[in-house]
């Protein structure tokens, strides 16, 4: 059945519609693939029975002509999404066990359109990490290895399970979330496509919160078109999320393949950072050439506050997280450790429940919000955030989209960077800016480095202009002709 798992989501939808195979067959093939790929540790919960039940229901709807736009396609769901009746832990001990009584809006939208859930995907604990090593369930392994090597590589994070599962053909697409790059960097590390839409496109309701003003859901998919199909279903105004944008969701699919002729593509000079591998620099230049060849006008732009983005991000995100994670106190659900008094119960519960990185960020966040430090850190960071958004607004006067590398390196070995938090945080240097500014941005696989590892390019668009982002991404994908797959070793 490997031919069914090697399909794109679009290909699978076509096959289901033409009745070349059933959703049950398609789903079974993926259930088998998931089972066979446990070495990747991509899934933290497999739900094959639920998947097949959903597939049977999908087949009935296909038969009766009531098929939704995602009818019958098996997806993986990042464990940050609350799924009704299905354990949802954010890959933290503190939420083990937790079974929600509600379905997140994004997954509800996918299931409304007929999608099938294969299970819950591994991730960094509470989405805090860039290598999927902070998960309480252990790291995810990247299906990609360096040429001739067998060292386990990170798939990136925090949506490492989503990226690995899609790259290894365990599912036709996956939900993911992105607070500082958690969709795009794993996509870049695994040769997949990941888009973080405009802040407010996808409802945050039912997604375990990390940093509310930055968190945004999006898909990781095999192709730009698949990402457009998934995002069209995931997005939509939700009155249950006050920050959800009250706008119509266009069908993003027709934007993929649309001509980019005449579009002005900005190249921000501040994204040429010290120590960036020459291969990434070269790939970026290649991307510029591809778009020029496709008829785009290339303009150099300046985003002068870029260098402050990472520090500002690592103040704002922990600040919000320190407050968002206060609810995990052992009182109502999840882990509860014993203690001699209330303070001890809190301390023991949170000491046992949270991992090191989560604790680090709670401490940073608590510190920057403290009396006497608030103005110097949080308020200052918010001002920087405004400047970063202003930089983009200025850029949009001369261009329609921006092209940058997605990450400053290719996938690295598990364990290689987790001793140095700062080195780890630098992974997000090109991605955090659009979280701070709320802009849509996509990572598209554009080539392999000398060691045979995938590299991604990032396209950034104006707020709510995912259409242009998809068009430019589609043009890059076409020009790059990226077909490489990880060689199966698992």
């Amino acid at each position: 059945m490997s031919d069914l798992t090697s399909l794109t989501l679009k290909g699978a939808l076509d096959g289901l519609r033409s009745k070349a195979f059933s959703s049950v067959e398609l789903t079974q093939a993926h259930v088998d693939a998931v089972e066979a790929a446990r070495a990747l540790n991509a899934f933290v919960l497999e739900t094959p029975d639920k998947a097949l039940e959903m597939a049977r229901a999908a087949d009935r709807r296909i038969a009766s002509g009531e098929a939704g736009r995602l009818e019958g396609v098996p997806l993986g769901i990042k464990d940050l999404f609350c799924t009704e009746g299905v354990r949802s832990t954010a890959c933290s001990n503190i939420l083990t066990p937790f079974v929600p009584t509600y379905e997140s809006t994004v997954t509800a939208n996918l299931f409304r359109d007929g999608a099938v859930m294969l299970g819950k995907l591994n991730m960094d604990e509470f989405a805090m990490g860039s290598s999927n090593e902070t998960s309480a369930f252990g790291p995810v392994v990247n299906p990609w290895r360096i040429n001739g090597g067998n060292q386990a590589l990170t798939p990136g994070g925090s949506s490492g399970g989503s990226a690995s599962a899609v790259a290894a053909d365990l599912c036709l697409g996956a939900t993911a979330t992105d607070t500082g790059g958690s969709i795009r960097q794993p996509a870049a590390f695994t040769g997949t496509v990941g888009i973080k839409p405009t802040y407010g496109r996808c409802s945050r309701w039912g997604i375990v919160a990390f940093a509310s003003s930055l968190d945004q859901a999006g898909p990781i998919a095999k192709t730009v078109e698949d990402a457009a199909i998934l995002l069209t279903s995931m997005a939509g105004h939700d009155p249950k999320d006050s920050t959800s944008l009250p706008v119509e969701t266009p069908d993003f699919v027709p934007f993929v393949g649309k001509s980019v002729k005449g579009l002005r593509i900005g190249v921000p000079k501040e994204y040429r950072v010290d120590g960036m591998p020459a291969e990434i620099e070269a790939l970026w230049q290649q991307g510029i050439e591809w778009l020029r060849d496709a008829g785009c006008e290339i303009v150099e732009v300046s985003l002068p506050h870029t260098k402050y983005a990472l520090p500002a991000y690592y103040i704002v995100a922990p600040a919000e997280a320190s407050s968002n994670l206060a609810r995990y106190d052992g009182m109502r659900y999840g882990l509860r450790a014993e203690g001699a008094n209330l303070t001890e119960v809190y301390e023991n519960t949170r000491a046992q429940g949270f991992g090191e990185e989560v604790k680090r960020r709670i401490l940073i966040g608590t510190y920057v919000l403290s009396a006497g430090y608030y103005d110097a850190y949080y308020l200052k960071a918010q001002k920087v955030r405004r400047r970063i958004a202003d930089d983009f607004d200025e850029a949009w006067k001369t261009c329609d989209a921006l092209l940058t590398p997605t990450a400053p390196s290719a996938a690295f070995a598990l364990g290689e960077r987790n001793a140095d938090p700062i080195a780890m945080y630098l992974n997000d240097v090109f991605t955090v800016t659009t979280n701070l500014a709320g802009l849509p941005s996509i990572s598209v696989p554009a080539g392999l480095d000398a060691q045979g590892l995938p590299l991604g390019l990032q396209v950034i668009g104006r707020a709510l202009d995912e259409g242009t982002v998809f068009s430019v991404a589609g043009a890059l994908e076409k020009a790059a002709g990226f077909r490489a797959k990880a060689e199966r070793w698992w």
Partner: protein
Amino acid sequence: MSDKLIQGRTGPWEIVLGLEIHAQVASNAKLFSGAAVGFGAGPNEQVSTVDAAMPGMLPVLNARCVELAVRTGLGLKAQINLKSRFDRKNYFYPDLPQGYQISQFEFPIVGEGEVIVERDDGSTFTVGIERLHLEQDAGKSIHDLDPNATYVDLNRSGTALMEIVSKPDMRSSEEAAAYVKKLRTILVYLGTCDGDMEKGNLRADVNVSVRRPGEGLGTRCEIKNVNSYRYIQQAIEYEARRQIEILEDGGSIHQETRLFDPGKLETRSMRSKEEAHDYRYFPDPDLLPLELDPAWVKAIEESLPELPDAKKARFQSQYGLSSYDAGVLIAEQPRADFFETAAKGRDAKLVANWTTNELLARLSKDGHEIEASPIPPTDIAALVELIETGVISSKIAKQVFEHMWAGEGAPAAIVEKHGLVQVTDTGAIEAIVDKLIAANPGQAEAVKAKPQAVGWFVGQVMRETGGKANPAAVNEILRAKLGV
């Protein structure tokens, strides 16, 4: 001001009081969750996944609560801030599921306003309103169900509160109680809070400091969650004395939060300033800044009811009531409505007298308000009409009232049933007078010498007639017969 000073061992002291009132918004649903609000539901029966702070749940602002807060602000003649913001106040406690309270810290929805308060002697003073903001209530921790455990009821968690902060404009415990009463009356008139202090729907935090007259403000202590007028007064009296004693002994006051113990009539320290939480306020990223449409605010303003001050002034000018009677009647809106229904076409002062001196006095003896009256306003009107038309005397009216109180129905029927119609038949009265003069020649002579003594004969006539004789007619006939 001098009468409000407290004499210490070393001289006079002035109390300075500021109040923070927490008033539960009269909304059927909570501030951010849409869950029902209500008293009397079983523990944890009115809790949504938002109120319990389940993972991924988000707050959505209840527009009705915003409307009621704006309405309150307008009723307090306060600045309505068209832009305000919700902030998180972070602290851990089991009855605070989110680990933070959503409140308004830097930018409240309502700014400065004022309340005019009347003292018992009829003089007035003004209390400045510093601000009013919206915030979530916490749940309730129950410590006395089990010696080794605390239970938490989240029904109240997330309920909308208006915190109304006064300026330090009160100088005595009486003034503080009078301010809370007045504020409560305004809220109830506006329909924005039911004002039920017993259920904790209106609670006060009292800031107390003392100073030598003419000096700057002293260090204050905050007494938390005082929920009756009496407790407010007792807490202030105790706390002011405590502070004065410390200062007179050469000590200094440490800013702290204190609790009032109604059993021991004392306040005790809850936490010092050093132990105070660092609440780490910051804008709630789950909520957008709150922006109000001026036209919407205007529409709310136009829908405001007649407020207590205006109603009192109208009762005085339209009905000729005394300031005191008008004050009693407007203190509770149902009283005012009762009065106005009864006064229609009648002698309003008489109606006011019967309503306050008889009916309200009787009701309050049992701790009831006018809503519990067994007598409808139309019957008070009918009673006054019987007096006005001379069918019964005021004295007889008291008897009639007793029957009305006992539930015997309309006054006219009572008068008929008990034969209480006033005797105005001069022939009948004359016959009785003649008989009495004949039987009491000595008394008659005494009256001739001292006309004021005619009262003895009036009394006798009344006794003979069972009080039904028209007193004016009796007087007239007596004076004619006795030639005085």
